[in-house]
């Protein structure tokens, strides 16, 4: 591990990682939510695409073995380990109005760093640092949050999905701009504004081997890895 930090609940951050970087996200106290969007720093028009990610892998949830796809048929990162089992990518973010109506609004003026930041504004702030704006937001991942679907389509948030110490490992397969926030999930049923910290651990890991679990978890991912490796062989997305 070459770096470790803690992001308190209700905050945001961004970082650019190279291929071969592992990001471990640890739910420190349980009940965390981490909103995440991914972009190709060499071409910001290439971005995480939740619909492609879901339909390519015939899944609604994200967990170990899944890959996060860009809209260009490439893999930003693979989920190489996951002790949680279900992460959401279809619910988006809470915005200011939603936070205010559910938990009440705490202004910065009055509460300073204990204000009630929302995920939508958090992404606008972090994205704006790279020239990204309203038009560039997409369906994000909500790590540690589970929303299941009944037969009639009704969505159900699980407040007990993630416990203290549970983690997810992301292995990046190409250079990636990561925007993240720790603001509440928009369907959270918490009685008070949830303010749960996560630990982030960055390390170097070897590239995916031929018998890699994520590469071989579906035939689609074999082809996704081929696309990504071709891009890197041609000089894109690499070191």
């Amino acid at each position: 591990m070459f770096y470790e930090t803690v992001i308190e609940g209700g905050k945001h951050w961004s970082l650019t990682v190279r291929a071969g970087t592992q990001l471990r996200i640890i739910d420190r106290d349980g009940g965390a939510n981490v909103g995440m969007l991914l972009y190709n720093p060499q071409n910001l028009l290439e971005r995480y695409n939740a619909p492609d990610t879901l339909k390519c892998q015939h899944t609604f949830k994200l967990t170990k073995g899944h890959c996060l796809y860009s809209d260009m048929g490439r893999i930003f990162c693979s989920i190489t380990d996951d002790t949680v089992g279900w992460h959401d990518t279809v619910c988006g973010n809470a915005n200011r109005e939603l936070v205010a109506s559910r938990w009440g609004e705490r202004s910065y003026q009055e509460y300073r760093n204990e204000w009630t930041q929302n995920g939508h504004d958090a992404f606008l702030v972090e994205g704006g640092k790279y020239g990204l704006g309203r038009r560039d937001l997409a369906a994000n991942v909500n790590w540690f949050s589970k929303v299941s679907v009944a037969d009639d389509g009704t969505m159900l948030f699980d407040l007990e999905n993630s416990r203290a110490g549970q983690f997810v490992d992301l292995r990046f397969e190409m250079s990636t701009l990561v925007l993240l926030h720790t603001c509440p999930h928009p369907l959270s049923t918490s009685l008070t504004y949830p303010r749960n910290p996560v630990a982030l651990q960055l390390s170097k890991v070897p590239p995916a081997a031929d018998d890699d679990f994520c590469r071989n978890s579906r035939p689609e991912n074999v082809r996704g890895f081929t696309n990504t490796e071709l891009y890197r062989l041609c000089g894109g997305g690499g070191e």
Partner: protein
Amino acid sequence: MRKESELLPGEALSRRVIPAGDYWIDTVKMGQTLRIVDVEGNQAADTLFFNAADVAEGYSAVDTIREQCNVYLSCGSKLLSTAGNLMAEIVADTVGRHDTLGGACASESNTVRYALDKRTMHACRDSYVLAVAQHDRLGLGKRDLSHNINFFMNVPVTTGGGLTFADGLSGPGQYVEMRAAMDVIVLISNCPQLNNPCNAYNPTPLEVLIWDADVR
């Protein structure tokens, strides 16, 4: 929920057939009603909306399904924007369920889903990119091409977290109708997909009709 419309095609302001593999882009004004007809059945109408007065505000699949707390669209669904505003409401629907999770097909995602040598086959996102390039006066670009609605597509989610592509619930002449709650630019790609059994490998035409507000 299924509900038939009382609007008469003979009173429509405009009627237009969209052949498979083609796109349609036009403005639907506040209060007007847009009907999309699945002319021969099991065709996918990949549809996006933009606020005509501020194109940076577009249809948001995630806000739409979350606020109605249901992943499927049908009569009564309020189609929301990235700013949480009402763009249009589905007011008639003879099918009963439409998808907004699966996104549009792309030549790039086709390489992953089917085979690497599918990369040159026509796809919805190529139609979208061409549409905004040929209408660049609107100020739209690739970055605005976010997650769309797939009218007439049936993509059931299982309780265990799976995603399946089932046979369509639609059929010849089935339609969905929505009333615009603001002036919206509507962009439809009539899906050219030749690799997916959901349209029996046979993409077919769609028809769009628009009625003025005072007809209803």
